């Protein structure tokens, strides 16, 4: 039952804030409720590290004869604990740092929504069976769909919301098919024992929801989802998918799929590269957030494909925590800039840092060309992070007095979690890793900084001038690349196939339902009988 305590706390707090906001709106009280609940939840999650692994069966269909098989259960183990810690940390950080954004988008309604999403996110991360995961995904997708549709938006934006929802549902269906195949092979199973025959579909499900495999970015502009709770909305679903990746078996690639492995790795590497370039060229970190997710999710997925699913944990944590450290750092306060360097440390992949164990995932099948592309992408991501770090900030005077204490505390909580995960997150998290890969990446970053300075660009603004040749070239190339990588051409192609099929089947319908339809039906019947009896008679 301890597994449900953080979830329960967050959901109760959310309901309390919602009711308070309706009856007697009070910013301070609502914030206090949210802060207390998320703090307690965070502490409980820390405590749960001592109780791993632990599970909680919820429901079993228990049909005699196994006509229907299904179980709902929660499971907290070394694959899921890092992510629930990350998610509760992000939530706590959001609440605390929202003290500094009272003039922007922080409000009790947003906190209430954020706590609910976190609660569902925790349930999704701790899902013990595919059925549990599917159910939670469905509920959270529906909530997000309703939430996004209620925002004032254009028809185009609406379409992107539906496409995004469609892609997520496709992921659920992929999971459903994988579950059926898995049950056909080895009966009822939980997420710790995913059969190899079903594993690829499970990976496809996770990849679709991460937007990385296949690459799909239907929803890039987020006018209303900026800082604060917007961060939770974007990252909570990601955490659940990352957990699924970590649970996949090491022998995911069957002999039938092995010839395709270089292609998969290539696609992921290109996705990572593209996302890294877009991360760097984004005007701010929020605009770059979708690419941030893809760029870190790609090596996580590659780790799974290469037979090292546990290495995906490191990449996943890099996605969530240092990213949140940056995304929640608004308004920027000059004196607090140094905190970002801790995030940078969490991304470097140097020995005994949180990302060190992630390198194993890229070279588990041997070092190859794609491994180096991933390293380049990694370097670009670090470079982009540096660009953001170097931007100057304002003075603490812009904050209220209580926020000057609470705001940095929110960011420090993330750093604490990062350190804790680096030390005791999962077996093998504290490791030297593959030092020379980290070194290559670091050298590339240093080289990039030097190169940029050669062009006369110095901190704090490591941007090319807008009238430079490089920027002009990128402005031409990037939209073209976006059209390719955003997979809109896939949707258009699919729509054309749909239109062609429509014409054919509408014609058939018109014939069969038209005035002579019965005769056509009888003709088809006679043909069918002739085929059958002809086949039997020889």
């Amino acid at each position, binding site marked *: 039952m301890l597994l449900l305590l953080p979830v329960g706390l967050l959901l109760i707090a959310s309901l309390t804030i919602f009711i308070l906001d309706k009856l007697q709106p009070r910013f301070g009280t609502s914030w206090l409720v949210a802060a207390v609940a998320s703090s307690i939840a965070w502490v409980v999650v820390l405590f749960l590290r001592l109780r791993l692994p632990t599970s909680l069966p919820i429901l079993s269909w228990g049909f005699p004869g196994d006509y229907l098989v299904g179980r709902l259960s929660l499971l907290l183990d070394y694959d899921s604990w890092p992510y629930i810690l990350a998610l509760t940390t992000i939530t706590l950080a959001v609440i605390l740092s929202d003290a500094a954004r009272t003039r922007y988008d922080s409000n009790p309604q947003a906190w209430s929504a954020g706590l609910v999403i976190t609660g569902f996110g925790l349930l999704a991360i701790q899902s013990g069976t595919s059925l549990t995961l599917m159910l939670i995904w469905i509920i959270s997708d529906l909530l997000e769909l309703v939430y996004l549709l209620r925002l004032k938006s254009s028809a185009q934006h609406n379409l992107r919301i539906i496409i995004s929802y469609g892609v997520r549902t496709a992921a659920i269906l992929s999971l459903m098919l994988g579950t059926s195949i898995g049950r056909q092979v080895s009966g009822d199973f939980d997420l710790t024992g995913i059969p190899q025959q079903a594993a690829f579909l499970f990976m496809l499900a996770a990849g679709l929801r991460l937007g990385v495999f296949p690459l799909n970015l239907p929803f890039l502009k987020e006018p209303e989802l900026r800082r604060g709770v917007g961060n939770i909305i974007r990252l909570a679903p990601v955490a659940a998918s990352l957990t699924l990746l970590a649970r996949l078996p090491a022998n995911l690639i069957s002999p039938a799929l092995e010839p395709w492995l270089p292609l998969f790795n290539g696609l992921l590497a290109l996705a990572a590269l593209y996302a890294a370039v877009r991360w760097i060229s984004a005007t701010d970190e929020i605009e770059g957030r979708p690419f941030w997710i893809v760029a870190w999710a790609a090596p996580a997925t590659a780790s799974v494909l290469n037979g090292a699913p546990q290495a995906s944990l490191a990449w996943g944590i890099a996605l969530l925590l240092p990213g949140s450290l940056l995304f929640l750092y608004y308004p920027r306060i000059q004196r607090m800039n140094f905190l970002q360097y801790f995030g940078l440390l969490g991304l470097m992949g140097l020995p005994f840092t949180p990302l060190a164990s992630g390198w194993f995932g890229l070279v588990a099948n041997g070092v190859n060309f794609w491994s180096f592309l991933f390293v380049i992408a990694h370097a670009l991501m670090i470079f982009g992070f540096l660009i953001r770090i170097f931007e100057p900030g304002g003075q603490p005077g812009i904050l209220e007095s209580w926020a000057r204490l609470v705001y940095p505390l929110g960011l420090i909580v993330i750093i604490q979690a990062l350190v804790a995960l680096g030390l005791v997150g999962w077996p093998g998290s504290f490791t030297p890793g593959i030092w020379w890969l980290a070194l290559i990446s670091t050298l590339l970053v240093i080289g990039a900084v030097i190169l940029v300075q050669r062009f006369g660009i110095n901190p704090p603004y490591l941007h090319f001038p807008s009238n430079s040749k490089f920027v002009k070239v990128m402005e031409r190339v990037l939209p073209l690349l976006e059209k390719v990588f955003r997979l809109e051409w896939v949707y258009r192609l699919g729509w054309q196939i749909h239109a062609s099929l429509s014409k054919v089947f509408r014609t058939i319908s018109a014939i069969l339902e038209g*005035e*002579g339809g*019965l*005769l056509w039906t*009888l003709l088809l019947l006679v043909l069918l009988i002739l085929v059958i009896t002809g086949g039997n008679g020889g």
Partner: protein
Amino acid sequence: MMLLSTLAFIVIVISAMAILVFRDWRINTGALGIQYLAVFALVALSWPVGMSVIKLIVGWMASAAIALSCLRQNKPDTSSESSASLIFRGLVGLLMIILIFLLAPDLQANFFPRLDLVIVQSGIMLIGMALVQLGTTSSAYLTIISLLSFLAGFEVIHAGLELSTLLAGLMVIVNLALALVGVYFISMEGELAPAPEEEGAE
């Protein structure tokens, strides 16, 4: 008996062709009535006359119901139909007749060895012509007439296979219900038809 069954078969062919070729409700319902006479004659070869006459009565009731509904609704005269469509339907009917003559002996040998060939031919004739009629019409009352013919053809064959009071009773219900549906359809269509001008109206 042989003469009677042959005569009944000829009547069935003629009446089925009449229903197929012509679209005048008077001809159609009249032919249907005559058809049921032939059906009665064929069924009486297998069943007691007392049971067989039920087919005749029910058939005539159905024909009468449809005819009276058409009369009441003043269904328009279809004499303006082109002769090409009449000829076409006639040719299709002839084709169906030839086909049935070719198929009937095999069907009788394989499926209904106990039945007389004429009975099988008659039943299949009714069924086949009714299917062609169904496929070439979109009119409600012709559809009902086709279905009644279809069921009559089936009853001719089934009567030779077994005798069951319940089956006979249920078939009565089905036939009458079908006729009622036909009446319902005709009155629906009739509500839309323009009222005929009174002759000599002031």
